[in-house]
């Protein structure tokens, strides 16, 4: 009862925090896609860079999220307290699934199709954009889907460095030992994640027509 009445009394704040959270995730995801997909396409053409790029992206994933936020604070330009630092950290987290799936998708094409493309006189760039990329799209999107769900969760921790969002309720709830406050952050975050998973899953299935 207390939780419900808390939700009812603070629905405007919860909604505002949810939108705040969503904005943080969407901006981070757009940047991560704009970096991850072209980088994935680039390392297909330059196999020497593959290990380095995937290695660096993996290292960021292994750093505990709270520590990563902490590490970024003292760094000039991208660091400090607030949304900018949080966005950088979220981008670094989202990068690996996007980069890895882009690479796997682009290299996992039926070899007879690639042989035909080469034999017909397509250039490497034409093969990349007209054959590899469209055929890899469903796999790339699966990576974006994974990254989005991770980012929605990790973004709650961004409140620790003053980035706002649903994490604000959770941290305050932990400090005040209030289940209602924790749930006010956790439930909308979980619903966002489920919704994103569902919608991106729908899109992914529509792309898998071949």
């Amino acid at each position, binding site marked *: 009862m207390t939780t419900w009445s808390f939700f009812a009394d603070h629905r405007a704040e919860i909604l505002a925090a949810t939108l705040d959270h969503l904005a943080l995730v969407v901006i981070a995801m757009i940047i991560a896609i704009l970096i991850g997909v072209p980088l994935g396409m680039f390392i297909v053409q330059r196999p020497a860079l593959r290990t380095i790029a995937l290695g660096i992206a993996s290292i960021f994933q292994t750093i505990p999220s709270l520590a990563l936020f902490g590490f970024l604070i003292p760094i000039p330009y991208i660091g400090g307290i607030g949304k900018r630092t949080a966005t950088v950290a979220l981008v670094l987290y989202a990068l690996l699934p996007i980069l890895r799936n882009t690479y796997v998708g682009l290299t996992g094409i039926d070899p007879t199709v690639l042989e035909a*493309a080469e034999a017909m006189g397509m250039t490497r760039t034409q093969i990349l954009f007209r054959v590899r990329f469209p055929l890899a799209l469903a796999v790339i999107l699966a990576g974006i889907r994974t990254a989005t769900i991770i980012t929605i969760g990790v973004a709650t921790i961004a409140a620790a460095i003053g980035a706002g969002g649903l994490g604000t309720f959770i941290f305050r709830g932990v400090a005040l030992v209030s289940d209602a406050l924790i749930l006010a952050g956790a439930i909308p975050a979980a619903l966002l994640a489920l919704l994103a998973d569902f919608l991106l899953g729908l899109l992914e299935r529509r792309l898998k027509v071949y």
Partner: protein
Amino acid sequence: MNMKTQLCPKKMIEFRGVSFHINDILARAIVSGISLEIPQGETLVLLGRSGSGKTTLLKLMNGMLLPTKGEIFVQDRSTTAWDPIRLRRGIGYVIQDAGLFPHFTVAENIGLVPSLKSWEASRTAARVDEMLQLVGLAPREFSHRRPRELSGGQRQRVGVARALAADPPILLMDEPFGALDPVTRTELQREFSALARRLGKTIVFVTHDLREALLLASRIVLLEAGHIVASATPQDFLRLEHPEVRAFTASLAVNPGAPA
């Protein structure tokens, strides 16, 4: 055309002392000592067991592989001197599983090389319809389908249509009918045999099936472990005494009950 080209058809492809090695520590030779002339209009069948180097020879002709030793001349120019992209756009290529682009429609698959050569859309569309009719598929019914909506035989017909779309003088075919059921295979072999005679293209056809070779070839070249061991017209081929030839002709005789 002048008299000279009619009397003595010019050679389209020529191998001069060609070897190809895999670039590893052992430097194993895949093919070696290959010298071969393929005149214009010939249907040359490269016959041999798996691993005898047939596909390697084919890939040497369109510059997908470059020779370790010797030279291959296509229309009097070495494959190392050709721009590989231009060379390949002038050579049709058909492979076993057709290798159609699954995300393209039949029409887009067939129209690919013309579009790469920046033909006008209307010219490409007319050519696509013409090619579909040529391989026995009704344009209205098939041009908007995707490869997964075709049977194996239909896919292979589209593969042939795609290879012919930009009207290349040379056609390379790597076991194009190998994955089809026997009935469809025989059907396509017969149709293609007639088509090949009509088109007058220079065709190099790879197979391990002697029956197919006898049906299609104007000349059969037999490969064994990377070497040419026999070269003859289909009629003469059956009379050769080379043990590898005997091995292939024996393969015809072991199942006399099988339909021709």
